[in-house]
């Protein structure tokens, strides 16, 4: 108990010192220590390069494609449209560089067509994203496709705008 308490206090002081000395010049000196001590100090680090898709910090960086995790499709189609290939490639690059990363590709459709056919269509969409990712270095054991068909809509109005939002594959990380 006492050692744990002492450790916690040490961490607290380390953070306090780091916080006090958070000027650009000292960042380089403290960064190695900081990363092992606490994530909070990352804030003071330089912003990640949004095009570095191997960097997990880009998951929350709105200017990086890694922060985008939904791919949309045309009606009754499962090919990944050119405008979404960048997103797929970014996540493939992340998975290639991070072998412990795991992704579930959730395939969805709009409400048109029968439910069981749509389970098949959702899977086809998931498979086509999986195929692209595999071709770009993601490993088979990192990718799982689950089709929900039309059962999990994000929008419930029967019009084209809503249907377009529902025809999608969601890239869901189960491990980063």
């Amino acid at each position, binding site marked *: 108990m006492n050692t744990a308490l002492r450790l916690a206090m040490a961490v607290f002081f380390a953070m306090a010192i780091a916080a006090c000395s958070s000027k650009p010049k000292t960042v380089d000196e403290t960064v190695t220590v900081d990363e092992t001590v606490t994530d909070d100090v990352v804030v003071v680090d330089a912003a990640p390069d949004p095009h570095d898709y191997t960097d997990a910090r880009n998951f929350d960086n709105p200017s990086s494609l890694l922060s985008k995790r939904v791919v949309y499709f045309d009606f*009754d189609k499962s090919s990944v449209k050119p405008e979404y290939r960048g997103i797929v490639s970014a996540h493939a690059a992340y998975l290639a560089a991070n072998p412990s990363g795991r992704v579930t590709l959730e395939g969805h459709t709009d*409400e*048109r*067509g*029968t*439910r*069981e*056919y749509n*389970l*098949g*269509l959702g*899977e*086809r969409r998931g*498979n086509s994203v999986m195929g692209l990712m595999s071709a770009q270095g993601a490993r088979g054991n990192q990718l799982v*496709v*689950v*089709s*929900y068909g039309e*059962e*999990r809509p994000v929008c*419930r*109005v*029967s019009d084209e705008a809503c249907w377009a939002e529902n025809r999608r594959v969601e890239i869901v990380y189960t491990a980063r």
Partner: protein
Amino acid sequence: MNARSISISFTTVTKNVKKSLILLLVLLFPLLAQAQLEIEIISGNASALPIAIVPFAWEEAGPAPNPGVAEIVSNDLYRSGLFDPMDVADMPDRPSDEESIRFGTWRLLKVDYIAVGRVRATADGQGHELIYQLLDVHTGDRLLSQITTVGEGDLRFGAHRVADAIYEALTGVPGAFSTRIAYITSTGLGSDQRYELVVADADGFSPQSVVGSPEPLLSPAWSPDGRKLAYVSFEKGNSAIYSQDVSTGARDLVSSGRGINGAPAFSPDGTKLAMTLSRSGNPEIWIRDLVNGGETQLTNHWAIDTEAVWSPDGRTIYFTSDRGGKPQIYSVPSTGGNAQRVTLSGDNNARASVAPDGKRIAVAQGRGNEYRIAVWDTETQRSTILTPGKLDESPSFAPNGSMVLYATREGTRGVLSAVSADGNVRQRLILSEGDVREPAWSPVIR
């Protein structure tokens, strides 16, 4: 009549489902809250037969039940669209046996047929006897004279049996009123969304939740003896097929492999289950032998092959495939062989339900953004559109082939409708809250 009794006792459930108390609660709690289906006729039939079902005399101890047997029979016949039952308030008197019927009076009231009867306790006091006659008002001929015996809690079921017999005597087709329907309900939104697989009497009464889950449930399919339902559940994060005993709640996991586990369909003899599995990389029809557990792959095509159903003789499997570019119905011998396209008209056709005559196939027919229920006649090779659309799906033939139950939309909510096989009579079955969809009409329960 115990086979039909659908009340779940706590003791049986705990014996059969020992896995977790939570599951038990999940199974039983919805029973209390389950809303009843409300039925209304949207379009009727001008040539409906005028008939009087006179309130049956109650000859048992205690007060007569409300609604009584005759009212339940009248409602059944009315909903078929083929009958125009007389209001009790308009009846000149209430005979309970054929000797006391004053035919002249009923003829003046333009009634064609009259049924009279009484209800008494069985000799052992453990059930009810429904003793009734059906007569032709114009000729005085007796068309039916029967005693129907049912268990203590099954008076409604007895009334449905009486309606079945009257329907058959006057139309030549067995009634399907004493059957049940299964359907999926969905209530709540987002993280509060909840799915239930519900079984109710064919008139929407006595709804019982078979299983509930926060994850999607779909594709309920009856076993031919009406005791089990196979269905798809996402409760484990991916689709999986379960088979569940409706009265005990005991269930088996049938398939939960990688990819899709969907669209279960029992063979007419109950020994096999057709299903959609995508373990090979894309959806194919597989047949599971429920006796020895063996599995055979029936289709092998890069297209989506799904929604298998059996012909009544068990020799043919009909299924949906987009191998020609858009979804259409194909057939394949259930023992294996080449697939042949069945539906030749309509932009796309899916989710077949085969009539008991084996000749008519109800489908969801799509054109543009409109989906309607159509019936494809395999002999004339023509389809007839039965419903107005726009998002009609999941057709399910009544076990006597007289009606097709299907799912449709009203605004943003799902409701069930039933349409007569000739398209003339339509009725709507509405749940007080939430969506209701994917109806499956049970086989005749003997």
